């Protein structure tokens, strides 16, 4: 356990040192504040309109940004140490492969959680202070849920990055796979589903379609942040199929959590089974 804490602390400190945390925190805060003000520009309005609009546009942005940040943060976590030669060295220390992986993941997860909470938290505070229409009391609930689900989304893609990092033996290949994972989960998956839906003129089994949506963590994340707002659901296209079913937020968050645990467990198992 001590070793895991040592590795996690180093990873976290590295993140502070190379300004990952600072850069992502600032990016989240600036984007969130900008969206709060210009999110309704398409409807001909400027300025903070309503919380639901802000959260929905934030969710649409976060779904692109957070997976990318998480994947880029951790794609080289294991394969990078392997290439440096420090992995071999660490294996002669009193730390197991699983312990090393757990420690590094905890460090990265802490970094990502910190910058997500800080970045969007700062944005919420600014909105509460500046916008007259927004009361703190109304902001706390939706933003808390948004931040919690964003952290889980980030962790899910961190776990995916760790899986990629353990199955590859070259950093360049891991980077390629990470980008591919981003394309598939964030862009291609929904397009393909939409294609199926249009191609069959909507004659897809409802249950099957729901399952397909719930398989993708980015869709689950969007559902979490849409179900809270009835009017937003109408503007969310395809997701409304599921949103209308009224999945409980708890269940959706559990799916996101599973998306963290399963790839990470698989990565740990594969890493532990490595011969050398």
């Amino acid at each position, binding site marked *: 356990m001590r070793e895991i804490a*040592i590795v996690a602390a180093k990873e976290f400190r590295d993140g502070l040192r190379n300004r990952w945390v600072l850069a992502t925190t600032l990016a989240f805060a600036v984007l969130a504040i900008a969206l709060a003000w210009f999110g309704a520009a398409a409807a001909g309005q400027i300025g903070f309109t309503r919380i639901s609009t802000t959260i929905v546009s934030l969710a649409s942005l976060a779904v692109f940004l957070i997976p990318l940040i998480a994947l880029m943060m951790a794609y080289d976590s294991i394969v990078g140490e392997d290439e*440096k030669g*420090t992995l*071999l060295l660490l294996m*002669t220390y*009193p730390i197991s492969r699983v312990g090393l992986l757990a420690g590094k993941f905890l460090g990265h997860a802490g970094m990502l959680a910190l910058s997500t909470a800080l970045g969007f938290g700062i944005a919420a505070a600014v909105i509460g202070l500046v916008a007259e229409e927004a009361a703190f009391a109304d902001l706390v609930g939706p933003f808390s849920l948004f931040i919690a689900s964003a952290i889980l989304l980030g962790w899910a893609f961190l776990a995916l990055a760790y899986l990629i990092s353990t199955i590859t033996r070259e950093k360049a290949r891991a980077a390629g796979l990470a980008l591919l994972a981003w394309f598939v989960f964030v862009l291609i998956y929904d397009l393909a589903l939409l294609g199926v839906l249009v191609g069959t003129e909507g004659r897809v089994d409802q249950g099957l379609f729901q399952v397909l949506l719930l398989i993708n963590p980015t869709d689950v994340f969007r559902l979490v942040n849409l179900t809270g707002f009835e009017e937003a659901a109408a503007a969310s296209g395809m997701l409304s199929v599921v949103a209308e079913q009224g999945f409980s937020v708890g269940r959706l968050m559990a799916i996101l959590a599973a998306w963290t645990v399963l790839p990470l467990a698989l990565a740990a198992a594969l890493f532990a089974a490595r011969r*050398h």
Partner: protein
Amino acid sequence: MNSVVRLENVSRHFGKVRAVVDLNLEVAAGEVLGLLGHNGAGKSTTMKMILGVLAPSAGQVQVLGENPRGRAAGHLRLQLGYLPENVSFYDNLSGREVLRYFARLKRIEIKHADHLLERVGLGEAADRRVRTYSKGMRQRLGLAQALLGAPKLLLLDEPTVGLDPIATRDVYDMINELRETGTSVILSSHVLAGVEKHLDRVAILAHGRLQADGTIDALRAQADLPLRIRARTTSLNGQVNERLAGLGLSARAVRADLIEFDAPASRKLEIMRALLADDDVSDVHVDAPSLESLYTHFNRLADAPEDANA
């Protein structure tokens, strides 16, 4: 048994590649063993099996009386030091931060890490980022890392590759110091010149098999390579040549006043007496076979049967 490392009939295969075949090797306390061989001869694989990173495909590995992959492995690892070949540490950390990180993982007090930095001569550069270090400084940092916790057994994989002669000497000075404190050292190298005086014993590997194992003197006796003798003569070489011909030897003239010939080591004194009896001889130089020629000899032996089979 007092041996620090004991390999019994150890083999390791990677698929069809036989990296190490039926290896028997022992290292005593305070002994410095040189593991010599070409790239791919099985040196690193042998080290990894001693470290417990790799399991042998067959045979038994014992380190300090324990199985390095057994239940005592965690405790055992605290007593081993390892410097891998081609390790590049965390570039964005300072030397001090890197060493402190490894010290924490090895459960060693931080102040020892700082002390080690001084000892390897990195005191002044300790707070600079590793990115700015020269190859020699990185290797010193690696060595400091291997020395954390005063290990009983030190494994150094190519510790002097890419180092300048002074840095190389520093590394061997440190190894000599350690030997005096009873630390066993296994080091692999293919830079052979000047290494022999630092090694107690030599093990030569080729194609994963042990070709020779013993002190350098023992290997010289075993290889029975000729001595190379050079004699400087004051006048023409004729008289000396005649004398040598009487002993059944023929010399080459290197220069007008310098002759050279090979002779079996067993006849050294006989030949010396003959040369010294000659008034024309002004200087005599005898070269025992170097580690390099021993290495070449045993590697050639290893290759010979393979060629015959092919």
